[in-house]
């Protein structure tokens, strides 16, 4: 009886030790979700998601308290990148598809209403607003992420967000429709 018990416990201990060693030896480093999410988020701390900066959103997202589509400036690319590591919740697929239609937005200052108070200038997370006290402010469109932070703070409601204007440099043809039986629109190729 003692022999059997000791044999079993030796076996158990030995195997346990082996398992323990194997766990150490073949340990796979799993990256902490939080850091991964933070890396994907724009990192501008604009506050458009309603959380305390990008770190706040990352924390909420890792706990499942925020949807992956919560970052408007990041848009579709960020949502898709997040979907790969966080996993897609119920109904998120539709909202990602909806994000595809979202146009990039930029802030626009109505110069007639601007008093030069400098509040927006201080609030902008990417320093996209230039101006000085008592001077009319303006937005550097390439640096603006359309986060709305300046819109809320403007005392004279002189700032709105608009769709980023199309120029000849960023214009491109629409996707031709796959409509069978319809004449092809768009460029002329092969008309002759």
């Amino acid at each position, binding site marked *: 009886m003692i022999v059997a018990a000791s044999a079993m416990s030796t076996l158990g201990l030995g195997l346990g030790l082996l398992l323990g060693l194997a766990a150490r030896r073949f340990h796979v480093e799993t990256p902490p979700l939080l850091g991964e999410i933070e890396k994907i988020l724009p*990192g501008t701390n604009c506050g458009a998601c309603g959380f305390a900066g990008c770190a706040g959103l990352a924390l909420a997202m890792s706990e499942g308290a925020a949807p992956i589509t919560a970052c408007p400036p990041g848009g579709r690319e960020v949502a898709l990148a997040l979907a790969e590591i966080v996993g897609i919740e119920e109904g998120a697929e539709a909202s990602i598809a909806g994000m595809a239609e979202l146009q990039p937005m930029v802030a626009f200052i109505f110069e007639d209403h601007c008093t030069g108070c400098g509040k927006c200038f201080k609030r902008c997370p990417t320093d996209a607003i230039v101006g000085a006290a008592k001077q009319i402010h303006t937005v550097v469109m390439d*640096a603006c992420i359309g986060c709305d932070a300046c819109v809320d703070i403007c005392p004279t409601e002189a700032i709105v967000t608009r769709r980023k204007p199309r120029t000849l440099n960023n214009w491109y043809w629409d996707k031709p429709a796959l409509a069978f039986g319809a004449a092809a629109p768009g460029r002329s*190729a*092969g008309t*002759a």
Partner: protein
Amino acid sequence: MAFPSLAALLRPSQIFAVRGGVHPEPGKHLTAEAEVLDMPVPPLVRVPLQQHSGAMAEPLVRRDDIVLKGQLIGQARGAMSANIHAPTSGRVIAVGHFTAPHPSNLPIPTITIRSDGEDRWGPRLPRLRPEDANPDEIAAQIERAGIVGLGGAAFPAAVKLNQRRKYALDLLLLNGAECEPYLTCDDRLMREHAEGLVDGAGIMARALGVSRIVIAVEANKPEAIAALRRYKHALGIALSVAVVPTQYPMGSAKHLVLAVTGKETPARARTAELGVLVYNVGTAHAVHLAVRYGEPLISRILTVSGRAIARPANVRVLIGTPVADVIAFCGGLTAEPDRVLLGGPMMGLPIQNLRVPVVKGTCGILALSAAETRASAQMPCIRCGSCVQACPCGLTPFEMNARIHAGDLDGAVKVGLMDCIACGACAYACPSSIPLVQAFDHAKGKLAETQSRKHQQEETRRLAIARQAREAAMAEAKRQAMARRKAEMAARKATEPGAAVAELPPAQAAP
């Protein structure tokens, strides 16, 4: 009947024709025998500040300024840009936005000049004797004259010329293939101005330091070939004419180099890496005018054709002339055109507004009647492979198209989307009338947009980090100042307690 010599049979252009390609209805008979007409000065010219690839030129004139013909009105900005000159004399009536000659109908910064009808020349550029000039002087003159590639892409000619510093060049290839149907402006230029064109070629060859010049012409232009064959040298540099097969898209730079030299340009590389630089024949003529006569690029020859035009013709027009005026000069429209295109029928861009101006890169105005456009119904792909046979780049258009419609742009890039030259041979060859090249145009634009958005995101992240660092530094500096002040106060209190501290106002206590 003459037998082709053995040497002629061994020319690479006869053996290495481009793969694929199509043979569209030429339609060149409408204008091939029409001598180039000079169009009178229009009452209004609209000169866009961006007529070239690269950065926009900066306006140098203001409203109500009086300008003379050839005066610099737009200064090149940055390394990739081109000067803009006033095409005629008159008064600047607006420096603002006007619809671009582009299918998007978007506005573009434009200088509008009301001509005074006198067409008075201002001071021309200083002339240059190319025989004595060094390459840098010639390149500077071409840059001053605002010359861009006149084949359509409008790449600044001087920037291309500067590739001589980076690559070992040995051949200047002039592109007189003119493979697009309908267009005959290069054909007419080669016939009527062969001497000036050859001189321009010699000037460019001298600037590049190459040892030979080849002018490539498609076999369907025998008169142009005969006109050019009279010249064996240009400024002492050997010149020859290569006859290439009539086939679309023979005029693509990489395919022309393949046909003439037998060397294939690697994917996404430049022909300069093979030691060959390709210019349009029109560019060579513009260089001749700029160097010999000091005339900047303010006019160009273009083909006005299509069955909806009353009198199809080749016309020399001032840059900035409204398209509607050019059409009116050619007798106007005989019928409501189905489509008005700038450029050729294969790669040209449709425009909606006929008030848009002619720019440096406009090689043709086509008003096509419904009989000429092919508006057949789109059908499903039957996997016949016609597009694969037609593709001059050896791609599989049907597969790229399927991937683009499935939203898999990366997959389309993997099968060669970025090697597509957008010639449209696939869409032309497709028996199901599938808009293949249109899908590729869309996908390339979309990819460029994604790329720029990614770039912007990285840049804004950098800005945000810089801001955070700055704010942290400011907070830290403030905290340290506070601590120092506190320490000073404490020290003072310790040395002379009581009244002394109360005497000093707080502002002085903390310098």
